[in-house]
């Protein structure tokens, strides 16, 4: 990871991130246990029922997370996880990408990708508009040709492609 010899920036500490991750894992374990209980966790007619295995897996997750949580409180403070500026950069990638994923069912893969590439190039890369347009449209046209025509693999499309008759 990054070597921050100087405590220059501020940011979330390892402790908070560890606690957060442990709690998230506990939540995951709880959901899994609930799901497992719905299908039954005991021994059925011809062997373990469907929920048997996930139940014990989730129990292990819960126990490990509780242990991690305990360790965090036993150890002292231990430095920064990341600076806020670094996290901002990471968020600058995560949030558009997540939005992209949710947009795909509505407007299709190609249009969403054009938007995503354009956003990244303009915002993070600070390229000129002509470069942005050329690359984003060019890449998607190339992808379309590669997947639809060459590999014959249809990718999710949206209303704009319907209008263009693709």
């Amino acid at each position, binding site marked *: 990871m990054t070597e921050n010899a100087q405590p220059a920036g501020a940011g979330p500490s390892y402790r908070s991130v560890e606690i957060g991750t442990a709690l998230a894992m506990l939540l995951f374990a709880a959901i899994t246990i609930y799901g497992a209980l*719905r299908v039954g966790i005991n021994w059925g007619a011809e*062997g373990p029922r469907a929920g048997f295995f*996930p139940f014990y897996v989730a129990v292990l997750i819960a126990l*490990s997370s509780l*242990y991690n949580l305990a360790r965090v409180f036993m150890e002292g403070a231990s430095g920064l996880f*990341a600076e806020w500026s670094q996290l901002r950069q990471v968020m600058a990638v995560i949030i558009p990408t997540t939005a992209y994923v949710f947009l795909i069912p509505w407007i299709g893969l190609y249009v969403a990708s054009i938007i995503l590439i354009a956003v990244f190039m303009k915002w993070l890369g600070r390229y000129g508009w002509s470069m942005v347009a050329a690359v984003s449209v060019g890449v998607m046209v190339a992808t379309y040709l590669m997947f639809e025509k060459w*590999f*014959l693999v249809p990718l999710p499309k949206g209303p704009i492609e319907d209008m263009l008759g693709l």
Partner: protein
Amino acid sequence: MEEITNLFHGFATVLQPFNILVMMVGLLLGVIIGVLPGLGGANGVAILLPLTFSMTPTSAIIMLSCIYWGALFGGAITSVLFNIPGEPWSVATTFDGHPMARKGKAGEALTAAFTSSFVGALFAVIVITLVAPLVAKFALQFGPAEKFAVYFLAFCSFVGMSKEPPSKTVASMMIGFALGAVGLDQMTGQLRLTFGVSELLTGFDFLIAVIGLFGIGEILLTMEEGLSFRGGHANINPKVVFQTWKELIRFWPTSLRSCVIGCWMGITPAGATPASFMSYGIAKRVSRNGHKFGTGEIEGVVAPETAAHAAGTSALLPMLALGVPGSPTAAVLLGGLLIWGLQPGPLLFMEQKEFVW
């Protein structure tokens, strides 16, 4: 011997024109992927896996293996020149490779890297060839209890070799199991953990998990650490290559030792990364120039690269013979095999001999 005949039959298949083309394309793509920071061997293979759907399984695995190899070498390029390890196992190469580049000896470092990777991989291929059928025959006697034991050993070794405290490793592994349990249960035919979401009927796809975890994770990591390139220039001309080769012959004990370490760590579920570190560490202690490691000793490049490539190649052995991947990239290759409907494991040797060889 039957194995040698099959091996030559395999070579003949490889030398068909389409397959040679596929090899070239695969190597080129692999080196590009290895050089690009944020994309490594496992990601590259995962992302390019769908490209191979239209090919026959044999050509596809040739392409994927070449991508894998190209990526292994691409990682060395960035380690030496930019001090950015392209993949985890190239980290040990940066210890001596980058100082060499800064001293102006980048050409030699790169030559040493690709020569040692070739040697390591060749050694591993020979080991696989000779040992694989034996392992396969032995593995045919495996029943469910033995298979469980093998997997249990693999997972325990993950826990043992991880730097993180065991509770974290166990938690992560169990999360993986839980995610794998989503969907239709094969034994009872019931749907579990889908909570009424119809897309989850078939569970979480392996490819999605790999791209999400490896691909996006690495990109985010790169974003977090800032994209800064401090480059070193390299001139490779044939004279430098020959000079380096002469020097490298001096280091054959290191090479041999690293090959053995690499093969062992590749066959057991360890992978190329621990192999490269272990080989570097042992070479540092055992060699005469050990105290100079870290300032640009060529031996410090030979050791990790040989081991990493030997491990990477021999990781294919447990994958093909037992169905247990020996490294993350082998895991992705395993996924690819499953997608084509081939069941890795001892049966692969019996039923799909042409493919294996």
